[in-house]
């Protein structure tokens, strides 16, 4: 049953002014600021570091970007939904360790270990989400807890099982070749070797962006982060959306973990710490709002690309890699200021 209120006489309805131009609407997208930044950095390194201009360097930069970028997608979605996940960095390693040690110790086909690792990674995401929505404790604290727990578990269990801080080489086990093809292969286009993670990354960005902007779930993610109470009042299942976002982080953590495992064949159990901030920084540079309700996954990809360009660019320029952190700090500040300004324009009255 749908009612409509009485319509005023047609003449009383003034003609609607023209829509703001496409240019303006593109300008106020969340990722605009980061795109400008990415172009500036591209030009900068192309100018100061000649090797940076080569096509093979582009492939290297893209690969470096993709390893951050895949997780940054999930972290950006989660931030748009109003939550944080500090365990995102170590859960990547937890997934890799699970697949590796389980398969090795029980002499299973690697596919079995890989699927069990998927279940574990999804479960970690689910537990994070469940604790956040059930207790109402800020996700910053809940996931700080799981971060510490997983960091400890990664090291302790690995030492207990292997006697060292790393897992054994799995490259001669059953299933290795097919799994390596999925997660860590490379192929050549025009003489340039491209890593498969770059393709996965682009695919995930395309899908997530479509979901965020063009589907009901995406609408709900934006609403849940923008104003959870009002979303709940119009019938949006707020808790399910949030738990789903944490589980998505778990899924991509698994994916990234499998790349780690099948490209190096062995996993260092202390790795991953600090990466959670890389993902968050990529998301923020890409226009995701810390308080939720605003951002894009294309932005997270541009943020990750800036990351990749800077790490590699500094190497190509022959500088001390210590400069990387300094650059990163500047970029983060510039990005947040630009994004603030773009958002002000977007939400300006009138």
């Amino acid at each position, binding site marked *: *049953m*749908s*009612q*409509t*209120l*009485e*319509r*005023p006489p047609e003449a009383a*309805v*003034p003609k*609607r*002014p023209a*829509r*703001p131009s496409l240019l303006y*609407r593109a300008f106020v997208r969340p990722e605009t600021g980061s795109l400008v930044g990415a172009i500036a950095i591209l030009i900068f390194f192309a100018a100061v570091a000649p090797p940076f201009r080569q096509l093979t360097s582009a492939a290297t930069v893209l690969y470096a970007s993709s390893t951050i970028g895949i997780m940054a997608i999930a972290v950006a979605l989660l931030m748009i939904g109003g939550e944080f996940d500090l365990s995102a960095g170590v859960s990547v390693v937890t997934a890799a360790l699970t697949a590796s040690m389980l398969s090795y110790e029980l002499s299973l086909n690697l596919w079995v270990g890989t699927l069990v690792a998927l279940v574990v990674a999804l479960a970690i995401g689910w537990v994070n989400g469940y604790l956040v929505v059930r207790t109402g404790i800020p996700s910053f604290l809940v996931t700080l807890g799981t971060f510490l727990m997983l960091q400890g578990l990664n090291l302790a269990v690995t030492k207990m099982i292997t006697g060292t801080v790393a897992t054994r080489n799995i490259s001669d086990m059953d299933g290795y070749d097919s799994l390596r093809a999925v997660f860590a292969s490379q192929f050549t286009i025009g003489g340039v070797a491209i890593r498969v993670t770059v393709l996965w990354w682009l695919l995930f960005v395309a899908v997530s962006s*479509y*979901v965020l902007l*063009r*589907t*009901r779930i995406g*609408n709900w993610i*934006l*609403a849940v982060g*923008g*104003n959870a*109470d*009002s*979303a*709940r*009042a*119009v*019938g*949006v299942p707020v808790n399910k959306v949030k738990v789903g976002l944490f589980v998505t982080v778990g899924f991509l953590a698994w994916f990234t973990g499998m790349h780690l495992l099948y490209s190096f064949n062995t996993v260092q159990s202390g790795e991953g710490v600090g990466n959670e901030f890389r993902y968050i920084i990529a998301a923020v540079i890409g226009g995701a*709002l810390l308080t939720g*309700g*605003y951002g894009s996954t294309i932005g997270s990809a541009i943020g990750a690309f800036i990351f990749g360009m800077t790490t590699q660019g500094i190497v190509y320029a022959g500088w001390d890699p210590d400069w990387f952190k300094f650059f990163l700090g500047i970029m983060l500040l510039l990005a947040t200021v630009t994004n603030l300004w773009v*958002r002000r324009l*977007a*939400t*300006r*009255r*009138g």
Partner: protein
Amino acid sequence: MAAMVDMAVDAGVPLVEMVDVGKSYGVIQALRGVSLRVNAGEVTCVLGDNGAGKSTLIKIMSGLHQQSEGALRVDGEEVRFGSPREALDRGIATVYQDLAVVPLMEVWRNFFLGSEVRKRLWPFNPLDAEGMRRTARAELSKMGIELDDVNQPIGTLSGGQRQCVAIARAVYFGARVLILDEPTAALGVKQSGVVLRYIARARDAGLGVVLITHNPHHAYLVGDHFVVLKRGQMSLDGKRDEITLDELTQQMAGGDELEALTSELRRAQV
């Protein structure tokens, strides 16, 4: 529609009825023995001071809270809502002052939030964005809100416009009962007028409206029935023809207290 409404009124079955409803938050008894009827085509006003229990009352009707005692009936049938969705499914829509909209989302997304229109297209069933934009624009212009662009974030609208978008949304999605929590509280005279005019239109279209307000003047402009709450209990319950604006104002301000206050302030001025 009008015939149906008349029948319902004649048969004496209100859209929503509360009988002796009470609610406690732990040790705090926020409501006690409140009875209320919401009829189709009428505006029921609930007035009261801060903390009187107005919001608590409507949160029970809208499914955010459950009553601790008493009965809630919809179309004469006793119900207990477990979630706002259940209330919405029975045609009871609520517009909260502070949680009406998601500021950073576009107007059309806000309009359709929770009731999105989708295309059947494997695998994602994407939103019918064009259709929703068109509908939102048309529905808003029906109530006199002309927007440059339904793609602008709703936070860029004025408070009154935002309130009206939220009301238009509820009406469009088939609300039979419209609950408004202090829709005019943050608004100036002109903006309040826009909202009140829209409330009157919703009433004329046959909806039952529950209007929560601090302002007896606003209540008296559109109200058919008045309930005044005081510390969780009803201190007044009357129809429009049984009560004058002065009486209403008196009741609201606590009667004698207001007179005492008036003379106190007079003396202070001299």
